[in-house]
Structures are given as C-alpha cells and as structure tokens.
C-alpha cells in the first residue's frame, strides 16, 4: 500500500510525541471566535458513514472558521446507498475537487484504505472500534488545561473499552507521555489483552481500585444493546461501575471527570457527577473546535 498523503491523521498510535505536542500547541493558538483564513478556498469533505453530532459539527465549524468550504456527504442520500465502494466514493470526491477528506466509518481501517489510494490528506474522525484521534487530542488538550503536564499523571478509563475507539486512541496518546493508565470494567468489555495496547496500561475489575488517587477519570458510554446477552446486566453494571459522588471522592481532590459523549445520566454516571465542578464534559466538546482547527490547518500545511 502507498503512504498516506502528508497532513493525514489516521490514528494516534503512529504519531510521534513532537507531532502531538505540535498539534496541541497549534490548537492553543486557534481562536474559534476569531476567523483566520488558513483554509481559504480549500474544500473539505466531511464523509460520514455513521451518525455524529459533536465530531461532525465541530469539524465543520473548525473548517469554516478557517475559511474553508465544507461539503457533507453521508451514506444515506448519496451513491453509497446505491452500493458505491469506499474507494470509488473517494475517487469521486477527489475528482470534484476535494482538498481533504474527513471520514467517519463503521469499519476499522477504512480511513487507511482511502489514504493509501488518494493523494489528498485523509483525517480519521472515528473508524469502527479502532481509533478516534481528534477525540484523543481534544481530551489531551482538556487535560493540559487543568494539569501542568502529563508526566506522573494517573488516568482511569472506565466502561466498554473493547468497543471503544476513544479508549484506544486515548491509551496510545497518554502512554506516549508516560501516563499510568488503568482500564476498568467487566471481562466482556475489558479483556485481559486490552493491557497490551500500549506501555503503562493495566486492567482491573474493581472501580474502587481503578480510581484510587487518580488525576483523571474518563468514562465511556455504555450501549445498552451491548449489555444484552452478556453475563453482566444493566443493574449489575450500575451497581459496579456507575460513577457516583461517593466514588468520585476516592480520586484525587482535584481530579477531573471526562466523557466523550453522548452521556447517559443514570447509567455510566449520575446526574450529580455529570454536573459537578470536577466534570469537564462540556469543556471537552468546546475543546473540539480549536483542536480540529489545528488538525485541518496541519492537513493543509498551515500549522
């Protein structure tokens, strides 16, 4: 396979620390309130094979704030519905003049396939269970708003790790900076081999063990349909893994609570935790815009 075009962002795993820090620094310089014409005239295609609120709207706002032209292509209402292959869709979008493609796709590796066959940057906006690099970067951005540095931090990620691209990208990113990561959940959601994802990652079944003394708690959405037929039921999940104000006290006093959204109050966390001063869930969403501005500027060679 050919190499992806310069400026592509397919995942966190193969990024160097410098590249990550460069993107985070560029994001600090971006101000969503103050448009800069870095992408003037550039056509950014948002190719979404899956529903999305946060990622799609923030990529679109990021592109437009930088003067780019965005076109949304979704699987329904396009030729994809008629059976056009991913590559043919990619060639078509290239032919109409796309300068970059932001892709969200239910299959792991779909952005890699596109990138290996196109000469324009491809940005992964979430591929199956694999990676969600822009989410990991905005989470890192949010963490660094509250913590001085990554080194020495302890992070607990709780929930359905197995199905989560957010968790995989977060593990890769935080691990590169020496963060101690604890993955917590039932064996169905956190298989033992999850610890092999990156250096410094461990697995525990006990929520109390996971969050004892941590600096950051990252919660993941629980998809009810995935609990069906598993050994663990919904009530059981809530009993063992729901983040409550009492459990939050086990973490450091200045610990922050994160969640990539959409949250389900009363399931993976209580309403009190979602709205408490330590919760940075809304702030994460806001961070998405400058971080994605930086990602797009880098894609066009402007950052």
């Amino acid at each position, binding site marked *: *396979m050919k190499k992806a075009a310069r400026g592509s962002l397919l995942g966190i795993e193969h990024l160097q620390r410098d590249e990550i820090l460069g993107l985070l620094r560029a994001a600090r310089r971006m101000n969503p309130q103050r448009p800069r014409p870095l992408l003037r005239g550039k056509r950014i295609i948002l190719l979404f094979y899956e529903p999305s609120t946060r990622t799609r709207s923030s990529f679109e706002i990021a592109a437009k704030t930088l003067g780019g032209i965005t076109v949304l292509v979704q699987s329904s209402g396009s030729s994809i519905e008629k059976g056009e292959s991913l590559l043919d869709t990619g060639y078509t979008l290239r032919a109409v003049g796309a300068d970059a493609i932001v892709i969200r796709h239910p*299959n*792991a590796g779909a952005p890699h396939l596109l990138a290996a066959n196109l000469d324009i940057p491809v940005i992964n906006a979430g591929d199956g269970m694999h990676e969600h690099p822009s989410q990991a970067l905005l989470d890192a951005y949010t963490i660094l708003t509250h913590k001085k540095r990554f080194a020495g931090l302890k992070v607990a990620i709780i929930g359905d790790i197995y199905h989560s691209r957010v968790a995989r990208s977060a593990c890769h990113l935080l691990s590169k900076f020496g963060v101690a990561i604890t993955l917590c959940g039932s064996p169905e959601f956190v*298989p033992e*081999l999850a610890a092999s994802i990156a250096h410094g990652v461990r697995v525990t079944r006990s929520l109390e063990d996971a969050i004892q003394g941590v600096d950051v708690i990252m919660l993941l959405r629980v998809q009810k349909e995935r609990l069906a037929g598993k050994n663990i039921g919904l009530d059981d999940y809530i009993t063992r893994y729901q983040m409550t104000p009492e459990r939050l006290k086990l973490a450091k006093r200045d610990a922050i609570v994160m969640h990539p959204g959409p949250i389900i109050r009363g399931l993976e966390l209580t309403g009190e935790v979602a709205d408490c001063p330590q919760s940075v869930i809304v702030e994460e969403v806001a961070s998405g815009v400058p971080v994605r501005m930086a990602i797009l500027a880098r894609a066009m060679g402007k950052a």
Partner: protein
Amino acid sequence: MSGIDAPMDVLLADGQVVEIASPKKIRGGADTTFDARGLVVAPGFIDLHVHLREPGQSYKETIASGTAAAAAGGFTSVCCMPNTAPVVDSAEWVKWLQRPERGAVVNVFPVAAATVHSTGEQLNDFKGLKQAGAVAVSDDGKPILQDHIMRDALRMAAEQDLPVIQHAEDTRLTGLCSMNNGPTAFRLGLRGMPAAAEADIVERDVRLSGDTGGRLHVAHVSTTDALKAIRRGKRARTRVTSEVTPHHFTLIDESVGEYDSNHKMNPPLRSAADLEAIVAALADGTIDAIATDHAPHALHEKQMEFERAPFGITGLETALGLAITQLHAGRKIPLTRIVELFTAGPARVVELKGRGTLARGSYADVTIFDPKKHWTFEANKSRSKSRNTPFDGWKLTGKVTAAIVGGRFAYRAD
C-alpha cells in the same frame, strides 16, 4: 514417496513411469531427454486444497488459469473445492469440472459438497458423487456444525471410502470476526476469531471419526490445540489426516500490518506460538500435507474495508519456495520430508493410486525443482487471474524447473 534420495534416471512413456534406475542403466533411448543434474526430480506435487472458482466466478479464476498457476508451482494434480456458484453438489457438476473443454493443464480432482448447497443440513448422494469422480466431500468455507450431520457424513463417506474434509470453525464464535483474536486484533479494533473456534470442532470431529470409522481430513490447521487433537486422534489410530498452508507456517497475525487485506484469510494468521506448533507438527508427521488453499479474488474485492474484504489469498506459485525457504533453509526440515508433504502425503489423504510416487507403473506426473535457486516472486507475472498475495516481491529459495503431467510438460521454466 519413492524413498529414493540419489541420482537416478527416470524413463516415462505412454503416461507412465516405465523405469527408474541408476544413471545410464536404462537400456534404449528416449524421444526427449531432460537433464535434471543438480535438480530434484520428485513425484508430481498434489495440492489438496484449491479454489478454481468455476463454475460461476471466472472473473477470479478459471480452471485453465488456475491449473496453469498450479503447473508453474509444480503441482501436477489439484483437488478443487466445491464452494462455487452454484455449489458443486451434484454428479453433473463434478463431471463438468473434469471435461476437456475446461482447459485444465494438470489433473483436476473434484471435491464435492458434503451437504446440499453446503448448508450443512442434508447430505448429498456420496455414491453418485464418487462415481462421477469426486475424491472427497467437503462444505469447505463452511463447517458442518451439527453433530448428527457430521456423524452421518463420516459414516456415509466411510461406506464409499471417501474422506470428509472439514473446514473446522465454530462459526457461532466467529461472527463478524476478520482476523485472529489477540493483541493485534485488539489494537486494530477488529473482532478476533478465538483459537477455540477451530480446536473445538477438530476435537469433536476426531471423536466422531473414531466413533464411526469414517475418514476425517482436517483442512488448513492453524492452531496449537487443533494439532493436539489431531495428534491424539492419530495415536488412537483414528482415521484422521490434516494439511497446513504455506501462509500459516510463514506469517503470523501481526503480519496484517495496517489492514492489509492480502493478509486476510480463513483460518486467519495466528500467533507466533501457533506457528511454532505448526512447524513442529510438520516435522513430526502430525501433518500429512502442505496444501495451498489457493483462493483468488479480484482486486476490487480485496480493495475494500478490511472487515468487508473476502477471505483468502493465492498460493500455488509460492508454495514450494516458501516451504524450502521457511521449513528447509529456516528450520532444517529435510528436503525429503518436504517432498513427502507435497506428494505421498496428500496422495494418501485422498487415495490417489499411482500418484505421489515415481514407482514403476505409476502415472508420469513429475515435478522437477532446483532447491537452491534464489528468485523473487512477482505477483504481476502470476499465471493466476488474481493477484491477492501477501508474498509479492518476496525473495525465496527453491524454484520449480518443470512440471510433467501424464508424460507431457505442463510447465517449463524459461
């Protein structure tokens, strides 16, 4: 095999091996001579497991193109799997595969579907299939999951003295999976097939084979535990045989890299520990044959999202080179054992009388190869219609010089 490892002269005539003797001992002359000094002259190779894609999928491969690739790989006989469109589950289709107008340049021995449409529900007429020329029955690509169907298949096949070839995969454990379960699958966000999905079925089948006396052949074994079950079966004198593919003794799941669909096949590439177990089983006789599972697919089918791309890779032209490079040069398995795995071993599995040997009176199927030749495999020069191989550009040791089928050259290297 012939059991001969010495310089010899071989005289072929009328499609048979007429004489095999020490140099210059054969009296009289021959119309054509082939100087094989420094080369290995072996019985014609037999591939127990190929997909020739006819009927119905000639855009991937035809019997003509697939057997041309086979000849270039040194195979003078191939057993073709029935998962075509339609499935080869009738005597008519078995005969159709063998007609001269198919253009085969090597011997084609059909494997017929074990059950109607290979749906695993109702057994086919094994007697009729055998009379039409089928050498085995299999629902390859799909396993026969139900215990009583597999039991009946083994029993009925035993009556016809046919082996049942099983693609051992408990598909109840592998839904939506596209590679081996392990750290690589987890990292790539791909659902992984557990090793137990293979081993569980092999264990059951070995037990059923013992119960019924039916001949079981385990296709493309890929896991340590499945090999253990086969070894136990062989010790207990159960009629079980097995094959391994070159890719399973060469590559591991990590080789998938960043979603290279030319590393996607079923069974999937397994762990490094499984590869070690396979190499040991090849050496110790647990495995009877090297079979390619040659599975051609068109470029547009493989250039898909990894999870959506079809399983399978081509393999006919790289099998010998990989065997010599990986097993002989790499692991010191004797060349005679490797030749056995390509000849006498597979001939025994499907009981091809007079093949897999150069004994006087056997078929004039001969494979001549240079075990020391270094070469580079180039997929774009393949005789197969498809190019879906992970070995494009690989440097290999050991190359086929000629393949003779029924006394005629089916392939001669330039």
